C-alpha cells in the first residue's frame, strides 16, 4: 500500500516536469518600454505557437544576466539578446546559434549625450573637453549603453573611463540615462540611439537641456539566439522552422514590442566584432 502511494506521489511530482518538457520557452528584453511585457510578448508567443505547432511560453526577466542564466540552464530555449549578452550566452551554451537580428541591428549605434550647461558641442570625435566631467553608462551588461561606448572612450583617450571622467555611474537603463543627463545629475552619458530617437519623437526630451555630441560608428546589436539542443527535443529541423517563423513575423503590432522594423537572418560570425571588443576591454575572458 505504502509503496503504491509512494509511486503515486513520485508520479505526481514528475508529471508537471514532463509536461514542461514540451513547452518551448523564450524571453526578451526590449531596449525601450518594459511595461506590460507579459501581454505584449504573450502575443508573440501565440504567433510562434501557431507557426511551430508546439506550446510556446514567454517569461519576463529583468536583466541581461538573468536572461543568460535562464538560457544556460535551459529554462528558456530562445532569447532576444543584446549583442554582448548574446555572445556571452553562446559562449556558455556550446552549439547555440544566432538565428535572426532586427533590421536596425545590422547598423546599430550609440549616442554620447551631454547636458547643455557643459558647453560641449556636437563634433566628429570625442573631444578632450570631456575629461573631468561626470559620466553615466546605461546598464552594466548593455552593448549600446556600456560596451561600445567604453570601447570608443578607451580608443580615443587611451585609458579607462574611470580615469577620463571624474565619476562614472551606471544608470541601469537608457531612459534613466537620458533623464539623469537632462537633469544635470550627470553631465555626459551614453545611450542607445533608438531609445533616444523614440523619446525625442514622444516629446520626452528637452533639447535645450540635453543634446547629442557624438555618434559611434555602427556595430551589430540585438539578435535571436536559440539553444543547440532544440532539434533533439522538438524534432529535426525545429531550429530552421524557428528562424522561418521569426523572419516571417510581419505584423507591425508584434514587431512594435521589440521595437524593430523586421527581422533579417543573422549568424554567430556577425557578432565577432562584439566578442573581440568585449575581450579588448576585459568584459570577457580570453
Amino acid at each position, binding site marked *: 500500500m505504502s509503496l503504491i502511494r509512494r509511486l503515486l506521489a513520485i508520479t505526481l511530482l514528475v508529471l508537471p516536469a514532463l509536461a514542461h518538457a514540451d*513547452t518551448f520557452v523564450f524571453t526578451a528584453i526590449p531596449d525601450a518600454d518594459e*511595461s506590460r511585457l507579459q501581454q505584449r510578448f504573450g502575443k508573440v508567443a501565440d504567433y510562434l505557437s501557431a507557426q511551430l505547432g508546439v506550446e510556446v511560453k514567454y517569461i519576463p526577466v529583468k536583466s541581461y544576466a*538573468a536572461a543568460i*542564466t535562464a538560457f544556460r*540552464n535551459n529554462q528558456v530555449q530562445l532569447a532576444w539578446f543584446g549583442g554582448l549578452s548574446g555572445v556571452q550566452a553562446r559562449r556558455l551554451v556550446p552549439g547555440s546559434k544566432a538565428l535572426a537580428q532586427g533590421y536596425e541591428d545590422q547598423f546599430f549605434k550609440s549616442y554620447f549625450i551631454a547636458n547643455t550647461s557643459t558647453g560641449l558641442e556636437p563634433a566628429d570625435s570625442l573631444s578632450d573637453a570631456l575629461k573631468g566631467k561626470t559620466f553615466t553608462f546605461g546598464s552594466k551588461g548593455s552593448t549600446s549603453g556600456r560596451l561600445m561606448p567604453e570601447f570608443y572612450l578607451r580608443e580615443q583617450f587611451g585609458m579607462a573611463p574611470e580615469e577620463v571622467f571624474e565619476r562614472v555611474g551606471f544608470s*541601469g537603463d537608457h531612459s534613466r540615462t537620458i533623464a539623469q543627463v537632462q537633469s544635470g*545629475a550627470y553631465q555626459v552619458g551614453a545611450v542607445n540611439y533608438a531609445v533616444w530617437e523614440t523619446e525625442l519623437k514622444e516629446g520626452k526630451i528637452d533639447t535645450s537641456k540635453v543634446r547629442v555630441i557624438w555618434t559611434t560608428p555602427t556595430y551589430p546589436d540585438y539578435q535571436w539566439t536559440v539553444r543547440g539542443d532544440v532539434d533533439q527535443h522538438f524534432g529535426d529541423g525545429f531550429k530552421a522552422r524557428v528562424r522561418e517563423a521569426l523572419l516571417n513575423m510581419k505584423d507591425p503590432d508584434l514587431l512594435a514590442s521589440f521595437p524593430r522594423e523586421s527581422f533579417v537572418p543573422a549568424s554567430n560570425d556577425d557578432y565577432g566584432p562584439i566578442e573581440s571588443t568585449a575581450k579588448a576591454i576585459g568584459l570577457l575572458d580570453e
Partner: protein
Amino acid sequence: MTARASSIFTGAAQSSVLTLNRVCLLLVAIALLALFGADLAIYPVDPWQELARIGQGILLPSWQEPRILLEALGQTVAFALLAVAIAAPLGLGLAMLFHWRGVRVLCAAVRSVHELFWGLIFMQLYGLSATTGLLAILVPFTGVFAKVFAEIFEQQSRDPALTLAVGLNPIKRYVYTLIPQAWPALLSYTRYRFECALRSSAILGFIGLPTLGFHLETAFKQGQYAEAGALLWAFVLLIACIRFWVRPRLILLYLALSIWLLPETLGFSNGGYFWRFIGQDIWPAALREGDIGGALSWYGEMLSEQVWPGLVQTLLLTQIALVLTALVILAVYPLATRAMAGPLMRWPGRFLLLVLRSTPEMILAFVFLLLFGPSGLPAVLALALHNGGLIAFLVANASDAGRGTLNDRPDDPSGLLRYAYIETPRRFPAMLAFLFYRWEVILRESAIMGILGITTLGFYIDSAFEEIHYDRAFLLIAVTALLNVLVDSVSRRLRRLAHAEPVRQQDSSCLKVE
C-alpha cells in the same frame, strides 16, 4: 533583576552611562573622520522638471490594470509569509544551539549577504522560480531569527530552569522553561520580521520575481511615475494595514493561499546546475586548471582593484550613515509619540515614519541623486532616512508602551523638557541597541548604490553578476560576509559595554500597540 535595581544606587550605573557616552562619542568621532575620506561632493543640477514629474506621479497615482496589481500584491505577501513560516522555526532551532561558535558564524555569514544577492545566487541554481524567491528570503532570515531569538533567550530569567532536574537534556530545558517564558517576545519579533519580509519580497522583484518590485522598478526607471506612485501607495497601505489582516486564526488559510499563489515554477534544478555552480563557476579559471601562480595573481589583482577600494568605500559610507541615522531617529521619533506629539498629532508623524520605512532605499537614492548629483551623499541620505524611519518607529512604539506604567509621574514635564530629560534618556539604550542591529543592515545596503557611481563592495558584486564573472562575485561576497561577521562581533561587544540591551519586553508590547 534585583542586582540591576540595586546597581542604580551605586557607582555601577554611572559607569555604564559613562561607557555609553564613550561608545557614542567614539562612533561620532569615527564618522567625522570618515567625512574627510568619503566622497560627498555636491554637483550643480537642474532637477526640477524631473522632480515635478515624480511629485505629480505620487500625488496623482494611476494604474490601468487592477488584476496585475492584485497579483503582484498577492505574490509579495505569499513569498514573505511562506519564508517567515519556514525561517522562524529553523531560526528557533538554531537559537538553541547558538552557544556553538560554528552556528554563530554560520548565521552571521548567511545574514551578511543581501537578499538581492541571495536571489542572484539561487537564480543560478533554480532559475527564475518560486524556489529562488523563497530561499532568497528564508536563508538570511533564518540567520537573523537565530541571532535575535538567542538574544531573547539570554534575557530570560534563569530561575525557572532551576526547578528542573539536573542533567535534563537541553532541548527539554528550552521546551519547558525558556520558550514559554519568551513566547510573547518571540511572537512579536516574528510579527515584526514579517513586515521586513514583505519589504524583502517586494524588492526581489527588482531581479525578476513577480512581486511589486518588478513593476515598481520598471515604472520608475522608465519615468512612468504615476504607475510607480500607485505601486508605492499600494505597498504603504499593505504595510499600514498589517494589523488588520494578519490574524492568528487566518494564518493557516493564508499559508494555503500562498502556496496556491506562488508563481508556476518553470524549470528546476536537476542537481547538475548546483555542482556546476559550486564546483566550477565560482572559482577562477586558473585555480580550476591547477595553475597556482595564475590563481594567486588573480586574487592579488582582485584584492588591489576591487576588494580593498570597495571595502574602504563601504566602511566610510556605513559609518557616516550610521551616525546620520541616529540623528534622524532623534529628530523624528517624538513626532510619532503620544507623549510628545499628542494622541491626534502623532498620526502625521506615524505616517511619515511609515512612508520612510516602506520606500525602498534605491528610490530615495534616485531622488537624492537628482537633487545633489552623483556621490556618496545620496547614498548616505537614503540609508539614514530609511533606517532612521524604521528605528524611530520602534522607539516611538516603546515610548507609547511606557505610558501609564509606574515610571509615569503626574508632575512630569511636557514638550521639549520631556523630550530632553525623560523620553530620550529612557529610550536611548534601546535606540542604540536597534542602531547596532541596523549597522550590519546598513553595511549590506550600502552595496546597492551602483547608480551613484560609488564603488562599494556591493557595486563590484553587482558588476560581477552582470558580467557573468561568478568567480569574482563569490570572492567579493565572501569578503563581505567576513566583514559582517567582524562588525557583528564588534557590535556585540559594544552593546555589552554600553549595557544597551534591546528591551525586548517593551518592544513586544509596542508591536501589539501597533
